């Protein structure tokens, strides 16, 4: 009862009742207690001697990383190219597979809401729920190490991402435009081509470039488990404690990511 009578008879108003106030305070208290409890659990197994040592350790590794071994860049150019290729081909593969899935999953284009749509949604959820590093681990076992495993890992992981965002874009289109094209006597494929595709094209371009951008980061990691690219060199350098190479690899990855940011910004600008 937020509105009540004050003593002088005028209407008083508060957003919450007294009971709601109490409930809120109790909820905050519970949250604080949970935080304290979690902190205790978290730090139970911590060896504090190591933590006290951490700044010195970090400074030591940092010192070994500097200066980066610049001459190593010659050997890095090929893996860098592989990394870019894994990301690009993986994204293309994902788009190729995700577009039909998105049309099957969107409520307004699916042939059957009862049967086809759940299957399409399952594909989207399943591919999204498995990290590309885990896909890569599986595929390296099946296909053997190399770039192909990386491409497929990146592609599979991206189907769900592209498919989900695209089917949401399809569901948000203006239905009047579709109705108008249907009313001309157009066949279903023509309706998709004339009424739906023009409406989702900007979203499609944005989603694809965004995913490519993410995939460049991911493809630099899949090499850690043998799926090609610069991750292979990173793993080798870490294993041999070649810290000056590790720092150069990190710099190379940073440069590539900056490049992809620049490209995706350009593309998004051009489309919209």
């Amino acid at each position, binding site marked *: 009862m937020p509105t009540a009578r004050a003593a002088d008879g005028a209407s008083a108003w508060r957003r919450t009742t007294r009971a709601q106030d109490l409930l809120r305070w109790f909820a905050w208290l519970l949250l604080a207690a949970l935080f304290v409890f979690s902190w205790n659990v978290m730090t139970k197994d911590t060896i504090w001697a190591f933590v006290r040592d951490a700044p010195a350790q970090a400074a030591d590794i940092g010192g070994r990383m500097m200066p980066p071994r610049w001459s190593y860049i010659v050997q890095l150019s090929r893996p860098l190219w592989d990394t870019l290729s894994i990301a690009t081909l993986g994204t293309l593969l994902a788009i190729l597979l995700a577009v039909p899935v998105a049309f099957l999953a969107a*409520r*307004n*284009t*699916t042939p059957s809401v009862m049967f086809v749509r759940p299957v399409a949604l399952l594909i989207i959820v399943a591919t999204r729920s498995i990290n590309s590093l885990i896909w890569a681990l599986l595929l390296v076992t099946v296909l053997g190490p190399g770039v192909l495993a990386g491409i497929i890992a990146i592609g599979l992981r991206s189907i769900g991402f592209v498919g989900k965002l695209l089917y949401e874009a399809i569901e948000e289109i*203006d*239905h*009047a*435009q*579709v*109705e*108008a*094209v*249907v*009313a*001309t*006597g*157009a*066949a*279903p*494929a*023509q*309706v*998709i*081509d*004339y*009424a*739906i595709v*023009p*409406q989702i*094209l*900007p979203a499609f371009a944005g989603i694809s470039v965004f995913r490519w951008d993410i995939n460049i980061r991911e493809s630099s990691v899949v090499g850690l488990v043998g799926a090609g690219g610069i991750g292979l060199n990173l793993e080798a350098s870490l294993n041999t404690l070649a810290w000056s190479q590790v720092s150069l690899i990190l710099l190379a990855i940073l440069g590539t990511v900056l490049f992809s940011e620049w490209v995706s910004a350009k593309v998004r600008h051009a489309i919209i």
Partner: protein
Amino acid sequence: MLRIEGLVKRYRTGDIALDGVDLVVPAGEVVGLIGPSGAGKSTLIRCVNRLVEPTAGTIHLGELDVTALSRRDLRRARRRMGMIFQEFALVERLTVMENVLSGRLGYVAFWRSFLRRFSAADVRGAFATLDRVGLLDHVDKRADALSGGQRQRVGIARALLQGPDLLLIDEPTASLDPKTSRQIMRLITELCAERQLAAVVNIHDVALAQLFLKRIVGLRAGVLVYDGPSEGLTPEVLTRIYGEEDWTRTHGDADADDDAARATGPRPELIRAV
């Protein structure tokens, strides 16, 4: 010629939008369909080309029974029924030319339409139609770059390029200013006279309907309550269609009512799968 007999539409929610409508529209005649919001005007014209499936009754376009057609034959029948929309319903990101040529989609194979390779005759027809509606200078503009009046002209050109026998026109002027509204209504009536098209025009503005249309049909709660000349819209008749209101006073008040009616959001019955 359009002949509607005993048309009933009951939505899945149980609402009866049309309750036994009979209507005959001969070739060359433009009929104004008036009635309060929710009377079933939009449903009626959408039943004709089966964007909304009728529950019962028959609809004949010439000799063709539209209600009995398979999906494939329905697509062929839709080519003969041009539709014009309140919010124009142009594909915003396509050019004026592509929008107009989409009126030919029912006649063209998928690959030709996908590659935008329409026949020379279709393209010539599109240019002629754009010339007729006065948009020849805007052929390559994107539809979202046009003004409201220009967009509605594109919508009209698209419908005409189908080579229709019948035009179904849903609130053609509801999104336009008064002057443009009159121009569009004039264009529609002229075109229907030129090409001997039958047409059903949903319209909220009674004064505008009286100005341009000779025959008016009044719909209230899914039932036809008036069918006669536009001069016959006396205060008693308007009360029968819309309900109690001081009909002897002109305009001002009536406009305010129209605005209120237009402010209603998208209608659930029009949201449907492809």
